[in-house]
């Protein structure tokens, strides 16, 4: 799981072009949206694309993304349970 969390942090940084952020900067339990990294709705859509492209998970309902993307750890758990790639 640790490997997945680190990998996920790197993927998020790349997908969202967070130029100044390193994996060490991201607290895996901190909220991704609102506070924390301060991501917004467009970032949520990019993350939906990311989990489909990289992990084969199709998230059809954008409103579910709030739960899934609460934090990096929650996201990693969701991916571990549902990945097809």
């Amino acid at each position, binding site marked *: 799981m640790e490997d997945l969390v680190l990998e996920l942090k790197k993927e998020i940084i790349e997908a969202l072009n967070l130029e100044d952020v390193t994996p060490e900067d991201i607290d895996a339990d901190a909220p991704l949206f609102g506070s924390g990294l301060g991501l917004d*709705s*467009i970032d949520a*859509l990019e993350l*939906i*694309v990311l989990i489909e492209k990289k992990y084969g998970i199709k998230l059809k309902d*954008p409103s579910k993304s709030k739960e899934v993307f609460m934090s990096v750890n929650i996201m990693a758990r969701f991916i571990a349970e549902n990945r097809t790639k």
Partner: protein
Amino acid sequence: MEPIYITGAGVVSAIGRGKEETLTSLLAGKTGIGKMKYLTSCHNDLPVGEVPFSNEEMAQKLGIADSMFHTRSALMGRLALREALNEAGLKGDALREAHFISATTVGGMDRREAYYELEKTCDHNYAVIATHNCGTCTEMIAEAFGEFASLSTASTACSSATNAIITGANMLRCGLAEIVVVGGTECLTKFHLNGFNALMILDAQQCRPFDRDRAGLNLGEGAAYLVMETEASMKKRGAKPLCVLSGYGNACDAFHQTASSPDGEGAYLAMQEALQLAGMKPEDIQYINAHGTGTPNNDESESHAIQRVFGNHLPPVSSTKSFTGHTTSASGSIEAVFCILALQHQFLPQNINWKNPIEGGIIPVIDQKPQGEIRHILSNAFGFGGNDSSIILSKCEA
């Protein structure tokens, strides 16, 4: 402001090729949204409002031998422009004095995306097609009719055509022109179909503007143009007015690139400006043709903005996008033509496919019969990036 006269109008959309067919569909409550027929895409299960002509059919109607070099937007544009110019009797020397302002955002994208994979190896011909930009689309539409005094192209996504109308109006009012021809055109492309799909704002069913259960918009395509002139020009040419442009407004929401602010500030300011310019109060408006895309965000935001402006004087409101789909850059002028028809034939375009009200939101009109005379109509067009525009069209005094 002094009135600006609209003396010609032409339209092509999913509900009609020309004003007559369009009127029939509007009165019958008949939608043009359906299965994708002309665009090739993996997402062909998404309902769309296509103009019921292939490019070859449109080219034939226009007497064009080879449609390869003509973008779909330009072909639709020419059909609509022809109708408008014919109605206004604008040609020859008079056309040479008229300024043409067209609006589009996709421009020649339908052609570029068709050849994109070949671009690195394509020949000169394909390269010509691929370099078609928004301005070229305007030139392609205009060149069939003669040489206008000037050409320009507005491009503000979904409010483009309304902004073309506004620029034209400013030209008339400051004396740079006596006649302007304004409007917009946009064809469906894989580019923006996929774009809107990626933003997850498309509905898998026919859209439901202002409905509690709305889930997004349907994309549409089409074109519409208006001939607008000063009173002096109209009288000199002996042209007959269809209606009057009484006011307009343009403001920026300045909130987000793809979402509207919760209180609809940009929309509010645009509508207020239009009323102010027209010297009107909210109670002077008898119908609002809303932007009403059917997305959760727009309809909520626009509801608030309309309520802020109109308060207790809320007139009937509807969105016609469940008829045509969202025709993006052309929507402002296509829906202006619907408003002109509504003024001429005294009916309220219905908000079809509506069932349940948004809590605290606008309840749109579903009965065509107006309460009294429709004298003034407000029409909204709100684009990505918060480019919000409104116009007021008024019945001509006999």
